[in-house]
């Protein structure tokens, strides 16, 4: 008995490496087969490793991110100056293109409104763009891009969507000059739309108009619409000139002082219509 125990002990000691290796291999095989089938169960060693392995992998990835970040943020920036300049130029170009497209869209909107206005008029007109301004105290004129070659003549009326603008005072082959209603030299026969009281509108040298020759007994009040009377032979009858903004007694106790705000904002005007047909004025 004692001898057999010794033999077993001797055998185990002699082949301990083989026995332990085989046992561990079988245990590994058991782990491999059960790990796949009973994945949720887990093992203590696996749980411990999950707390030790993950930080090491995180550390490695953190170092990698730092190196990659340093490379991208510093070394890779060598050629960025030229790229930055190129991108700036592209941005400027795109901003300019965007501004131009916006401008085209706004112009398109204005022209569409002007076209509708033109089609609603009972007389022939020529569209023209304003290419120059002369807004002084003593002279308020604009220059149009259409002249005699386009059928523009002196003393034709220039109007816009909403009201009158002025009359042509100079004409050349490729351009013309319009005397605005707000010019000191401008005189337009008008009347109050509501009461049909007549008068003459003159420019006051600023952005406003003065309606003259309105008697004290005439019925005029703030808010009245002022329209053309058609008597001058330049402006057709019924075009809106502006709106009465102030009515006072003048110093001579005979006429009223009537201030009129132009219907058209002349400072923002960009396109006008020039009326060609005078024969239809008295219709």
């Amino acid at each position: 008995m004692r001898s057999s125990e010794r033999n077993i002990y001797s055998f185990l000691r002699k082949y301990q490496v083989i026995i332990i290796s085989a046992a561990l291999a079988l245990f590994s095989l058991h782990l491999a087969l059960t790990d796949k089938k009973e994945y949720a169960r887990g093992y203590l060693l696996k749980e411990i490793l999950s707390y030790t392995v993950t930080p090491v992998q995180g550390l490695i990835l953190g170092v990698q991110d730092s190196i990659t970040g340093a490379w991208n943020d510093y070394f890779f920036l060598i050629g960025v100056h030229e790229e930055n300049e190129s991108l700036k130029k592209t941005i400027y170009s795109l901003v300019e293109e965007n501004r131009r497209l916006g401008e085209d869209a706004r112009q398109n909107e204005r022209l569409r409104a002007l076209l509708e206005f033109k089609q609603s008029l009972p007389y022939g007109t020529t569209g023209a763009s304003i290419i120059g301004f002369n807004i002084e105290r003593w002279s308020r004129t604009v220059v149009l891009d259409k002249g005699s070659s386009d059928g523009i003549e002196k003393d034709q009326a220039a109007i816009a969507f909403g009201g009158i603008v002025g009359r042509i005072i100079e004409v050349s082959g490729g351009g013309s000059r319009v005397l605005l209603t707000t010019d000191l030299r401008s005189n337009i026969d008008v009347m109050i739309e509501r009461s049909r009281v007549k008068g003459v509108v003159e420019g006051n040298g600023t952005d406003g108009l003065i309606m003259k020759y309105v008697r004290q007994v005439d019925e005029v009040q703030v808010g009245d619409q002022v329209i053309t009377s058609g008597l001058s032979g330049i402006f057709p009858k019924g075009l809106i000139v502006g709106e009465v903004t102030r009515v006072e007694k003048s110093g001579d106790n005979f006429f009223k002082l009537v201030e009129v705000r132009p219907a058209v904002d002349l400072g923002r005007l960009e396109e006008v219509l020039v009326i060609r047909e005078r024969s239809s004025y008295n219709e």
Partner: protein
Amino acid sequence: MLKFHTESAVEDRPLHIKQAMKEFLLFLPLTIIYLALKSTLFAAFPLPDIPLIMVFYLASRKASTEGAIFAFILGYLDDAFSGGVIGTSSFALLVIFLSVHLLSMVVQFTTPAARAGGAAAAALVKGAASYYVLRYSNVDAYFFTHVVLQALVTGFFAPPVISALQWLVLLVTPRKFKDNES
């Protein structure tokens, strides 16, 4: 020959365990660094199987119980880092450990060519064992990339890696002039 090794190991048991612990503490951080790099930065590269080369080295040099345990731990770490099925690498490394241990009784893995061939064959065994375990568990595995290519790379790098391991072991091995004389 086998008897001589066993008796010698029993006689120097405390010293033997101490030396095995030193080697374990030396190899373990290297393995963790290698596995961390392999599972992160070099996941797409066919790196040599360093744990396998370590096991091959331990088994071919002088197999011990500690070496078998170390093979199991290395395999377990390999599976844990790579996210594979736990136990496959352990099983494969222990099979290799056992095979190389038995083979080293008749073959001396001392030349670079023998080490390269042995490591490549061991990598093939490991790869094949892992492959069949994975296939048995219905996990997709590709024989060429997982087995053949890995074996070739491991065999190519095995001699320099084993030389480096020997150099590292020498650093922690106490000089025993008395033993050298005898």
